[in-house]
């Protein structure tokens, strides 16, 4: 009798588990695949039942999104900004993290605290002062060299992105560098290797797994970012998420659904592909790196 009751509870429990897991899975898979299917629907198919499958593959949406909505240009800008920001970030943060983790010198503690404090700086507040700083800077440059290049410049945007990612990246990388035994460097110095050479040839290769984690997380955040991008790139040069926002706004007045969802897929696809390729790395990296803001 008692056993039967336990069995009943057990089955109920299993059902509960599968219902909850199933519900969340569906709530994620359905909307994401719906927009992917919607991107190949013709505009007339958007009136009426939204659950109807597309009649055929209407690829014109993507062509329109690429040319008419300029998502092709924006894609290129995003690629440019993201890769430049990643390169700047790595060049700047790797040596800094290495030195901060492995050399003792005057002021090291202060510098560590300084960079750690950056983890609490919220990028969305400081975007206004950065914008105003660039307005002033551009005015100054205008009077000095007759040219302005701080606002509406993808390189400057990349520089700002890299700077805002510095605290988290340095924190994560020095967390790794601290764990390497001192013997490696000592052996290298005995062999007559200089400081720079030791860092480049011995320490950096060992840090490859951490570097990959850094690249993954920051690629996602740079590629998806739009508040800074929207503020600092005010003219024709825009990044993908800002372009998508424009499409969303345009869609409200002139319903052009197909183009909107094609644009959405263009923004989403690179991150999804990357995710599928490296999902293990990404979800494991979280336990290594702890929390990002």
């Amino acid at each position: 009798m008692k056993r039967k009751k336990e069995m009943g509870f057990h089955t109920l429990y299993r059902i509960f588990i599968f219902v909850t897991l199933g519900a969340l899975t569906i709530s994620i898979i359905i909307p994401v695949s719906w927009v992917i299917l919607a991107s190949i629907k013709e505009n007339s198919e958007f009136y009426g039942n939204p659950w109807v499958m597309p009649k055929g593959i209407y690829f014109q949406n993507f062509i329109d999104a690429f040319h008419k909505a300029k998502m092709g240009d924006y894609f290129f800008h995003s690629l440019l900004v993201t890769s430049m920001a990643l390169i700047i970030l790595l060049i700047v943060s790797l040596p800094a993290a290495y030195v901060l983790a492995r050399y003792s010198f005057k002021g090291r503690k202060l510098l560590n605290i300084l960079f750690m404090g950056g983890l609490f700086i919220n990028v969305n507040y400081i975007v206004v002062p950065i914008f105003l700083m660039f307005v002033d800077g551009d005015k100054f440059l205008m009077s000095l060299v007759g040219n302005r290049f701080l606002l509406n410049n993808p390189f400057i945007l990349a520089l700002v992105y890299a700077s805002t990612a510095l605290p988290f990246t340095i924190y994560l990388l020095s967390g790794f560098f601290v764990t390497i035994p001192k013997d490696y460097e000592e052996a290298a110095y005995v062999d007559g290797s200089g400081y720079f050479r030791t860092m480049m040839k011995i320490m950096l290769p060992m840090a490859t797994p951490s570097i990959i984690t850094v690249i993954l997380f920051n690629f996602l955040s740079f590629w998806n970012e739009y508040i800074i991008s929207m503020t600092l790139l005010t003219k024709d040069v825009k990044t993908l998420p800002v372009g998508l926002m424009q499409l969303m706004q345009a869609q409200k007045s002139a319903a052009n659904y197909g183009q909107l969802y094609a644009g959405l897929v263009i923004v989403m696809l690179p991150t999804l592909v990357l995710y599928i390729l490296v999902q293990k790395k990404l979800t494991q990296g979280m336990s290594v790196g702890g929390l990002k803001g």
Partner: protein
Amino acid sequence: MKKGRARSTFIGLCITPALILYILFMLLPTFGVFKMSLYKWGGYSNKKEFVGFNNFKILMEDMNFFRSFQNTILLIVLVTTVTMTLSLIFAAILSRERIKGENFFRIIFYIPNILSVVVISAIFSAIYDPANGLLNSILSIFMKGESSPILWLGNQNLVIYSLAIAMIWQAIGYYMVIYMASMSRIPESLYESASLEGSGKIHQFFSITLPLIWTNIRTTLTFFVISSINLSFLFVKSLTNGGPDGATEVFLSYMYKQAYTNSSYGYGMAIGVVVFLFSFGLSGILHFVTKREHLEF
């Protein structure tokens, strides 16, 4: 001596670029927020007038600001409690129960976290669309004859909850993965002995799992406050733009509006300072009240 100088040069060369970028684009702007909050500063003209705490005085009587305050608090409480509960439950299920395809679920649940907030907003506008939306078309099956569609984003009383759902949807996977990582470090033997003593699964969850990952929960709670303030801004900016009629205005969206649309930078930055102090204060309080004795495995 020569070696010492080479060493200092090396250290200097490694640190300086990072320090310059950090000071230029992080520290100076942060000080800028505080400094500008004391000025009356309108837009591109260089008219800056020092007004002391006047901006803050105006702020204390600004009903729109209080509205954004209320909305933000509601979102923080709602999103934090729901996300935390759900992600803890899912993390416990996936790490404790031997379920086929555990990895599959983990991969799927993490997907929203890799999407841009703009993409998520576009997806949710498709879901919430009053005429041809996914949600209303499902509901219309159950509510035959109801003629007026539900305005998920158009109804002033409803819209904040619609927003909260989108935020929860985005966050569950991320926190689930964090909690799973710390749950996997709990030794299996604890659960085994608890089972032998006849303790049920739910009891085990409350008496073993929760206490042992408490440090982790505390840390995420602090981050929840900061990231809810942040994310609510990102979602509002792309999904509702504060509307309808200010029903979803949150801290930072109101700040951004004052600074750009209204061109009152000084006033906008005063809002920034208040939000800054608020988020730190709240994080601190949460950190303090959730203090428990640290448990070792």
